């Protein structure tokens, strides 16, 4: 108890107090006076008495020091002194302090913010129970590593597998929901009965689907997402048992999903229905489903894959016409979801790490310069009795002070940067990345920040010591001691700057390559004119238009109605918009009559388009003709094929007039090629577009398609009247996704990913350029200040200004050259690693390398020109006197 009390009193004693010092002095003084009084009374002289008093006391200063040591905790007190001394030092040199703190905060913010994304995407587990047992199950073939499963294959896989405790399938869909403002197209998903059970998700209201509820014979039911229940149905508890009409079909609401339930589909589905396979989907060749399985306890992914492959081979033998070449793919569900963004995130994290490295190197070299400048101060303190450990502690304390302030700012900046980065991603992208919901300043991120801060603290405390203890401390007191620091500096500081320039080079080259990729991507040959195109998605309420003729009639009316809108030049429909598809979209298998056929699938892209499609897109007809609106089900089947189709399957011959059909040559499938069109980008921007067939919409109407309109005025202003016109034909038509083709391209996942990585790495590179050039400037400036005397002597001996310029610029130039050469080597290595992020750009892209070299070289020369100028303007007389 009393010990604690004493400790507390001593703790408060850390803070220096004028009062206490005065009290102590007065007490000792009165002690001595009383002693003198007594001795004088005993007959001694005042002089003798004073001497005796001080002697018996044991010395005034010693007594005071013993008292002071007891009044506080000496270690803490000197630590406090170090801190306040360090703070004073920094305040005295605010430029230095601000630079160091800013650099550290910048590097810290970049790396911590990016790490938060990495954590959300790659480190945090999926938000389902036992996520490590969840796998993505798919078919695969030589063209597509992860292809959709056909429903009959799924049923066999489910029946014969021995590795999954459950296996389910799902696919996204859309429903027409009648709303007061006209029908709306809403997102939905169709899932097999055990889907939620497999994920481990339990509805918060109502029940999960029961076994067999996904059969066509079961009554129609639906489970709502939480947001839908809240926003469309006002969170009413009595929603269960109520009926919603989806695309004209009534379904009973049986459940509501939890608020935090997310599943990565292209958009979050509002309505979840049991799958109820249609007749078409019972076909083994109809690949529509994504699979998700829960592994049995202790079963590995590899074992599951082996089991599934075995079943797939069995099916291949059993159903050669449909299953030839169809293997199986089993990967972790997390891998399937975040796999595509991993390379980008890791690239960004490395970029941020490099930026942090540059910042640290820069700060380190600044500290080195500063410690060299403080050699005399250190030597004086050592001479006055400061112990070596006390001197070291002083520098460590100052390093810690800088790191602490830098870290605080860095974390604040990082929190801001995380918000900005989220805004950088388009809404579309965010919907595809539900895991980013987990993005926050959590323990992982804190720990990461702490490790970075710790490393920085070690570097920042150790660096000045390097400059301090490499030479005998007493040298610091002697004149002309700069020579030895100059040597040290040139060895270490120059190496640091070369490293900095090399890292900057790596970042600049990466940014250049990514920028060039983005440029190439956005200027990829689309095969059509993307400007002045407005689009929207249409869902036809099929219950009202069950016959194909009814559907084609409706589509004709929509096109006619839209075509007469002011400013509209032409309008058309297509089953899938160009650029829009993930990969290649809808494909079919074909076969050519009169050619040997080994059963190997010939797979081509397939689009149902209306007659005006090519004209509206302004595609280029190479041969033959486009089809007309009159070519419908009553006329012979025709097709227009793409140029690559013609080149691949009709090399050296004219395809126009030739026939092809499905692999079985079923009578209705045979069609004649009537024209060849230059390739249109029917796939995502960065993937190769497969050979494509275009079939007349009127010969195979779809119930959901996209409308494309070419406008002579701004396509943006056309959008509202477009929707109104479609609803004018039939208010029951579902409409969604009103947008322009240019925006569609800009917002496409491919473009967004490339754009965000190019911008971010570009940002890192800009800072890196800035920091490394500042670093170079610092080194050269310091070098000039150290060589003032030498330059003075040279000038006194007749060197003219030009020679001094040459001297300094030569030093800067050789450092820059070393940095750039080292940088180019590393950059090419780095670029080959991130090749998967590049598009149409080689890792050793010469023009980028040259441009970056010139940029960095120019900036470096500019930075060293300033100190060179200062050197050239040295007055030799003053320079020689200065020492």
């Amino acid at each position: 108890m009393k010990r604690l009390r004493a400790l507390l009193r001593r703790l408060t004693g850390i803070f220096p107090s004028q009062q206490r010092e005065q009290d102590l002095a007065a007490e000792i003084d009165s002690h001595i006076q009383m002693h003198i009084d007594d001795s004088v009374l005993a007959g001694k002289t005042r002089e003798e008495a004073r001497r005796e008093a001080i002697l018996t006391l044991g010395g005034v200063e010693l007594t005071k020091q013993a008292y002071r040591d007891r009044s506080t905790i000496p270690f803490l007190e000197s630590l406090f002194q170090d801190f306040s001394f360090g703070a004073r030092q920094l305040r005295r040199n605010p430029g230095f302090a601000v630079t160091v703190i800013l650099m550290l905060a910048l590097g810290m913010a970049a790396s911590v913010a990016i790490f938060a994304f990495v954590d959300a995407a790659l480190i945090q587990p999926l938000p389902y129970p036992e996520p490590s047992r969840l796998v993505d199950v798919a078919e695969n073939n030589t063209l597509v590593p992860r292809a959709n499963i056909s429903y009959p294959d799924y049923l066999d896989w489910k029946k014969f597998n021995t590795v999954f405790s459950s296996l389910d399938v799902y696919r996204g869909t859309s429903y027409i929901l009648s709303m007061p403002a006209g029908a709306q197209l809403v997102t939905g998903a169709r899932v097999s009965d055990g889907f939620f059970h497999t994920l481990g998700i339990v509805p918060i209201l109502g029940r999960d689907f029961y076994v067999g509820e996904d059969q066509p014979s079961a009554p129609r039911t639906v489970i709502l997402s939480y947001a839908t229940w809240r926003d469309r149905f006002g969170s009413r508890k009595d929603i269960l048992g109520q009926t919603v009409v989806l695309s004209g079909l009534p379904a009973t609401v049986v459940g509501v999903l939890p608020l935090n339930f997310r599943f990565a589909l292209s958009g979050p589905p509002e309505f979840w229905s049991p799958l109820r396979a249609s007749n078409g989907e019972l076909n083994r060749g109809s690949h529509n489903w994504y699979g998700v399985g829960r592994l049995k306890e202790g079963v590995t992914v590899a074992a599951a894959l082996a089991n599934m492959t075995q079943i797939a081979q069995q099916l291949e033998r059993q159903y050669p016409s449909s299953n030839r070449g169809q293997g199986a793919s089993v990967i972790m569900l997390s891998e399937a979801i975040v796999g595509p963004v991993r390379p980008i995130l890791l690239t960004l994290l490395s970029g941020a790490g490099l930026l942090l490295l540059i910042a640290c190197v820069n700060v380190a070299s600044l500290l080195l310069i500063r410690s060299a400048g403080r050699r005399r101060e250190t030597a004086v303190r050592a001479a006055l009795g400061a112990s070596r450990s006390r001197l070291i502690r002083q520098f460590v304390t100052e390093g810690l002070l800088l790191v602490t302030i830098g870290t605080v700012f860095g974390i604040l900046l990082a929190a801001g940067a995380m918000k900005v980065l989220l805004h950088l991603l388009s809404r579309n992208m965010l919907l595809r990345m539900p895991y980013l919901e987990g993005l926050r300043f959590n323990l992982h991120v804190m720990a990461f920040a702490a490790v970075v801060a710790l490393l920085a603290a070690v570097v920042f405390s150790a660096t000045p010591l390097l400059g301090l203890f490499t030479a005998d401390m007493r040298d610091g007191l002697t004149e002309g001691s700069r020579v030895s620091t100059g040597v040290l500096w040139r060895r270490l500081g120059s190496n640091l700057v070369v490293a900095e320039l090399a890292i900057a080079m790596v970042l600049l080259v990466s940014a250049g390559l990514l920028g060039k990729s983005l440029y190439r991507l956005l200027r990829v040959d689309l095969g059509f004119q993307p400007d002045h195109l407005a689009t929207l998605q249409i869902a036809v309420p099929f219950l009202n238009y069950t016959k194909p003729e009814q559907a084609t009639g409706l589509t004709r009316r929509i096109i006619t109605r839209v075509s007469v809108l002011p400013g509209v030049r032409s309008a058309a429909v297509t089953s899938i918009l160009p650029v829009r598809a993930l990969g290649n979209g809808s494909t079919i298998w074909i076969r050519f009559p009169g050619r040997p056929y080994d059963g190997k699938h010939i797979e081509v892209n397939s689009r149902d388009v209306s007659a005006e499609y090519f004209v509206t897109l302004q595609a280029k007809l190479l041969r033959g003709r486009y089809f007309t609106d009159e070519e419908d089900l009553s006329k012979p089947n025709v097709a227009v094929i793409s140029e690559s189709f013609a080149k691949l399957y009709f090399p050296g011959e004219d395809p126009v007039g030739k026939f092809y059909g499905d692999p079985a040559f079923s009578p209705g499938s045979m069609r004649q090629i009537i024209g060849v069109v230059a390739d249109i980008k029917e796939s995502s921007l960065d993937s190769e577009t497969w050979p494509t067939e275009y079939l007349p919409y009127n010969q195979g109407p779809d119930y959901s398609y996209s409308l494309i309109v070419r406008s002579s005025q701004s396509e943006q202003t056309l959008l509202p009247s477009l929707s109104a016109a479609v609803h004018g034909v039939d208010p029951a038509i579902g409409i969604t996704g009103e947008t322009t083709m240019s925006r569609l391209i800009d917002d496409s996942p491919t473009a967004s990913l490339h754009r965000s990585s190019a911008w971010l790495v570009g940002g890192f590179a800009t800072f890196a350029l800035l920091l490394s050039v500042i670093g170079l400037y610092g080194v050269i400036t310091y070098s000039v200040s150290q060589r003032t005397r030498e330059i003075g002597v040279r000038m006194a001996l007749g060197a003219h200004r030009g020679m001094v310029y040459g001297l300094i610029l030569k030093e800067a130039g050789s450092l820059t050259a070393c940095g750039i050469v080292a940088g180019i080597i590393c950059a090419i290595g780095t670029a080959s690693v991130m090749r998967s992020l590049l598009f149409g750009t080689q890792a050793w892209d010469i023009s980028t390398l040259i441009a970056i070299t010139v940029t960095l070289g120019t900036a470096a020369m500019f930075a060293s020109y300033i100190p060179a100028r200062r050197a050239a303007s040295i007055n030799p007389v003053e320079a020689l006197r200065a020492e």
Partner: protein
Amino acid sequence: MNNKTDVWQGTLALMVLKTIEILGPLHGYGIARRIEQTSGNRLALNYGTLYPALLKLEQEGAIEAEWGVSDNNRKAKFYKLTRAGRKQLEREARNWEQATEILACFLAPENDIV
């Protein structure tokens, strides 16, 4: 050369407390002189060591300090015993007596241990 005894570790605080108990509030110089006199000038007391000891007792709450005026009209800091200090004194005095008794048994010339 010097036949005076050094102050044993830990005994100074006890001497200080006992001195103040007997004489009442007293300044540092007075305490030092008194300790020297009581020991019959056999202790080699560095007066300076008294002050950290006084500060320690003050920090532990055994004594309190207050500025006052000495007999010969000098301004001085007077230390007086607190309640806690009185208890501490009793306890330590008892401990010390016990310790010396035990030690005395060992050092007695005619050892009675059977």
